[in-house]
């Protein structure tokens, strides 16, 4: 027994228990394995997953008793309805099941299984009203159609004494056939795990719901009024946070030109804060809307456009079938989508048959395969999110993505062997175009059997005989005969291309494991060796390890397809420093396969990392055309456009990416692009919108960064300190905070934070610590610390010592810095910056500025150095043309925030700009700039040199005088 226990055993035990206790947070739905197609839930058979949310997973399922497809919502264990018990669910569901109306989605059934409770609804195709509103307000006629449908649904439910309680655009579904359906009637609140107890979404909640009153039909009418307002204007009358509990807010006025007076009056009556002032019955609202529609009825019905578009697609498909009767002319391509394999063998190694088919078709000169990501993106874009591409979903997705044919691979066991099948289906639902079958005696023969099937498919799809001969599909020979190895390989490739915002996103390190396991199954698998060599090249691998994989890939070169062999050779050339040869090889591959995404990316990326932005741009533009949602090419494309000053194109890209319907990754890119375009205010506005749309940590970081770029460090600090309510700060947030404190001259706090950080994730490696200390010391003017940190950083991590070394050269001792810089790569930006600064300090300012200007063109925002624009501002300020100083500061402010030094440098650059403006005879401007700086430095450490300099300048500039009396000061 310990000393302390003997003094007070109870209190120590309690304390230990408290420390031992860990929360038991729900496991996010993303980690649920999901149900396999074919699994039974109650009497329903799962067909595919169609969506996930906080409450659980939605599946398309078959009701075999009635022979119809349904949507099955499986509520995850731990969700609110699951916790409340079966009886409660039964009562709620029975009330809703009483509703039967054309504009209300039907609840067919509900029940419980060991996996959780479930609700069964009719299955719909189309998009939600919120998806539709993402494209802007509704034309009047469409608005009345939607509004009347919703009002009729509400009237029916209110007659049955069922309230919706959470009417909002996400709960209204616009079916592909033009019908409008209200979803989740009376039970929407079941799915809002953390929502208010009375249900509701703030923007649509009536004042009485804010007070946790149950509300009545008039609360639904309030929400309906908000909905009408939003459909009319695209704006919420009380904003996103709604009327709130506190001071009643006034609704935003409806513009007179958007709606007839009668509709405006109705909308305004519906959103009255006092329930008594709203229409007394839902039927009155229906009647009023019917009357408005009668007076405005038009012959054109815009909401029927989807049906017309579908008809047009049918014609297109018929044209394709006719076109398939002959061999295609050279160069004429068709696009194919590949459905997920129908694997009835029970062997998971055959789950990736579709990928084998896609790889084999990579040899085709005729058939261009759409990536799975592109198919899924087409589905998401049309409100048909799905996780699985079975035949049914595949046809819809293929149609949406504009594919000419859907290829459906299938496998089943046959005695000791397997029967493989490949069907070609027209996306419009006509008869199959062809079906090819092949038998494999064992798993090892499957790749060869697939080669046969793919050859048949290529012939059926009218590929030219010459092309078939010239580049046959030879999967078994070209990849691996081991299916498990292939499966690991494909999962590795998936891992590398997964979108960054997805839950399953993993860093490149984790992707390596797949290829390593693939080699465990087949040590001679050349492509797995190549992928490992590729990943290791950027991961700091030892040369022998990298070389071993590269050599292994090269040994099997003759087995690879011409395309794959060329890709391996190109990478080898790059590793050996023969980039020109690598680029020429990529160009050759692209001449034959112009849509090869991997090679387009490799070529663009190689140009990109050679900092040849102009040459890189067309590759990323081509990739964007092929895969509009892929983030990496877009990110690189935006950077290329920004660096090469193609502002108009960047602005256009930013507008597209910043649209409400864009992916979160796209929006984040648009925010950065706006900063690059010199419009931090617009960046802040977009970041605020993105944050309001979904409070991800990424969105909050973007807002903080945009505010940083705009010089609003107070709010940037607030958002950085609170990445998400009530959670402690992560390491990266704390490092950002150090930079923000530096900008405000609060170095005492910044040092304290940096010191406390060293214990966060284990001891901070000394090289990293020196790197951070050097950057901070440069700002706080502690030159001894800077010298020590730069020296330590060079000794411990020369590849990462660039920034402290350049700062040492700039602020302290260029000779010492030049000596230390001999440890750097002489061609690196940091080494060249140190040399330029040293030349400047020796008096050769022209050479220094020329060298820095050149660097700025090639590497304007270096990773391991200081932005040349900032150095130019500093060097020019010491005796150059003041207008050059102001321009350099402007360019420096357009760089996306990053790096500890950026904080204090941002503030210091304001002093440089103000002095330059003073010299240019612009005292008003100089005063405004220095006032802005003093505002940023409000809480600065009292003895800070920058603060003293700013105050001295402010005093020198004096008070503004009346305009007439102001005379320009001569430049000193």
């Amino acid at each position, binding site marked *: 027994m310990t000393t*302390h226990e003997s003094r007070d055993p109870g209190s*120590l035990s309690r304390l230990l228990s408290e*420390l031992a206790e860990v929360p038991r*947070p729900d496991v996010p739905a993303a980690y649920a394995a999901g149900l396999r197609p074919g699994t039974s839930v109650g009497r329903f058979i799962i067909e595919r997953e169609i969506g996930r949310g906080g409450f659980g997973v939605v599946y398309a399922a078959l009701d075999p008793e009635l022979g119809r497809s349904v949507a099955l919502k499986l509520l995850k264990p731990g969700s609110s309805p699951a916790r409340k018990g079966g009886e409660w669910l039964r009562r709620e569901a029975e009330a809703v099941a009483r509703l039967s109306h054309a504009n209300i989605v039907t609840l067919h059934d509900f029940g419980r299984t060991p996996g959780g409770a479930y609700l069964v609804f009719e299955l719909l195709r189309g998009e939600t009203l919120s998806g539709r509103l993402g494209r802007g307000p509704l034309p009047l006629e469409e608005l009345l159609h939607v509004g009347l449908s919703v009002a009729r649904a509400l009237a029916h439910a209110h007659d049955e004494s069922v309230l919706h309680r959470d009417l909002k655009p996400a709960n209204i579904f616009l079916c592909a056939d033009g019908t409008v359906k209200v979803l989740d009637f009376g039970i929407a609140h079941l799915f809002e795990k953390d929502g208010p107890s009375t249900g509701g979404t703030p923007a649509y909640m009536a004042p009485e719901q804010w007070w946790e009153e149950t509300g009545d039909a008039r609360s639904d009418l309030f929400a309906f009024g908000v909905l009408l307002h939003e459909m009319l204007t695209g704006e919420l009358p009380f904003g996103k946070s709604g009327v709130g509990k506190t001071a009643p807010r006034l609704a935003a006025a409806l513009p007179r030109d958007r709606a007839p007076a009668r509709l405006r009056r109705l909308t305004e009556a519906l959103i009255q804060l006092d329930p008594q002032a709203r229409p007394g019955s839902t039927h009155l609202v229906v009647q009023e809307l019917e009357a408005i529609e009668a007076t405005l009825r038009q012959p054109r019905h815009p909401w029927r456009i989807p049906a017309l578009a579908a008809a047009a697609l049918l014609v297109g498909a018929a044209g394709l079938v006719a076109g398939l009767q002959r061999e295609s002319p050279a160069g004429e391509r068709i696009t194919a989508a590949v459905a997920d394999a129908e694997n009835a063998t029970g062997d998971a190694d055959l789950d990736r048959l579709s990928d084998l088919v896609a790889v084999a078709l990579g040899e085709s000169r005729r058939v261009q395969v759409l990536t799975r990501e592109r198919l899924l993106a087409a589905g998401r874009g049309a409100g048909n999110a799905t996780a699985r591409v079975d035949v049914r979903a595949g046809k819809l997705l293929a149609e949406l993505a504009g594919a000419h044919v859907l290829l459906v691979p299938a496998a089943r066991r046959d005695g000791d062997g397997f029967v493989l099948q490949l069907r070609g289906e027209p996306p419009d639902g006509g008869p199959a175009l062809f079906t090819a079958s092949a038998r494999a005696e064992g798993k090892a023969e499957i790749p060869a059997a697939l080669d046969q099937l793919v050859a048949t498919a290529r012939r059926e799809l009218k590929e030219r005989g010459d092309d078939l001969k010239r580049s046959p599909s030879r999967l078994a020979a070209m990849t691996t005969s081991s299916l498990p190895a292939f499966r690991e390989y494909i999962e590795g490739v998936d891992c590398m291309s997964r979108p960054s915002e997805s839950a399953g996103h993993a860093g490149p390190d984790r992707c390596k494991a797949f290829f390593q396991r693939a080699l465990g199954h087949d040590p001679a698998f050349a492509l797995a060796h190549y992928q490992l060599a590729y990943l290791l090249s950027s991961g700091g691998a030892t040369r022998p390890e990298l070389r071993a994989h590269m050599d292994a890939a090269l040994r099997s070169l003759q087995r690879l397809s011409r395309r794959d062999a060329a890709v391996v050779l190109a990478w080898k050339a790059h590793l050996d420093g023969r980039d020109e040869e690598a680029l020429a090889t990529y160009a050759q591959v692209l001449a034959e396969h112009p849509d090869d995404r991997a090679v387009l990316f490799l070529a663009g990326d190689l140009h990109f990392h050679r900092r040849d932005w102009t040459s890189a741009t067309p590759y990323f533009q081509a990739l964007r055309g092929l895969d509009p949602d892929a983030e990496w090419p877009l990110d690189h494309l935006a950077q290329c456009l920004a660096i090469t000053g193609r502002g108009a194109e960047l602005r256009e890209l930013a507008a597209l990416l910043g649209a409400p319907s864009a992916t979160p990754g796209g929006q984040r890119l648009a925010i950065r692009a706006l900063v690059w375009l010199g419009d931090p205010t617009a960046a802040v506005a977009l970041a605020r919108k993105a944050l309001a749309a979904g409070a*991800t940590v*990424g969105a909050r970081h973007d807002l903080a960064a945009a505010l940083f770029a705009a010089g609003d460090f107070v709010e940037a600090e607030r958002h950085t300190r609170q990445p998400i309510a009530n959670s402690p700060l992560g390491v990266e947030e704390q490092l950002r905070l150090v930079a923000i404190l530096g900008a405000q001259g609060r170095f005492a706090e910044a040092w304290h934070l940096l010191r406390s950080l060293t214990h966060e994730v284990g001891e901070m490696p000394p090289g*990293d610590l020196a790197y951070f200390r050097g950057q901070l010391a440069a700002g706080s003017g502690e030159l001894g610390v800077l010298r020590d940190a730069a020296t330590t950083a060079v000794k411990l991590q020369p590849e990462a010592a660039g*920034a402290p070394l350049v700062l040492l050269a700039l602020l302290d001792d260029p000779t010492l810095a030049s000596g230390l810089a001999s440890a750097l790569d002489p061609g690196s930006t940091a080494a060249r910056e140190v040399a330029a600064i040293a030349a400047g300090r020796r008096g050769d300012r022209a050479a220094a500025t020329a060298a820095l200007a050149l660097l700025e063109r090639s590497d304007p*925002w270096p990773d391991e150095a200081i932005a040349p624009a900032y150095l130019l501002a500093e060097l020019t300020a010491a005796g150059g043309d003041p207008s050059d100083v102001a321009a350099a500061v402007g360019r420096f402010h357009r760089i996306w925030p*990053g790096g500890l030094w950026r904080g204090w440098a941002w503030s210091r650059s304001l002093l440089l700009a103000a002095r330059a403006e003073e010299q240019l005879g612009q005292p008003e401007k100089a005063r405004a700039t220095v006032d802005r700086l003093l505002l940023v430095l409000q809480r600065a450490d009292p003895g800070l040199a920058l603060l003293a300099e700013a105050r001295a300048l402010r005093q020198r500039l004096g008070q503004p005088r009346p305009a007439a009396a102001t005379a320009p000061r001569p430049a000193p």
Partner: protein
Amino acid sequence: MSVDTLVASLIAARDYRHAADAVMREYGPGIRGLLLTIFRRNPDAGEEAFSLFAESLWRSIAGFRGESSVRTWVYILARNAAVSVTREGWHKLGRRLNTGEAERLAEEVRTRSGVRLERQSTALTALRDALDLDEQTLLTLRLDERLPWDEIAQIMSSSGEPIDSAAVRQRFARLKTKLGELARGQGLIQ
């Protein structure tokens, strides 16, 4: 049916998906809580460790032969995930905060679930901060999960030198002494 029996029967039927699901349902929340507590000052690392744990679970469940209890096995996976994230900690998180890195870091940050650790009192937070990965694991497994010493020894031995249950008990006693002294220093106990 116990989770061990259910998982064993699902694995025997090669229904790995449901086996992993059953394990996740039973142990997922506790393990996520433990990992988020270990990495309480860096929730991203906690989520990363949980993600790594989930991945090991899905990948290795087919090879689970029942040589230990399911509970021991999943805690071994969780501890390995935590150790691996700690080792990668600075490499992944604390490295450069330059442009490219900041973007990469930000993009790796996931959408957070609503569930978060509650803020603790300052003194208790200081005590928690004094716990390293193994100490937090030891404390939680013994006092919160109430695991027997030999099971804890098995879990704690997973990624290094084998430790027997007597050594684990000694470590626990030392930990109690350490925390007692710290707590007294913080004025949390007399």
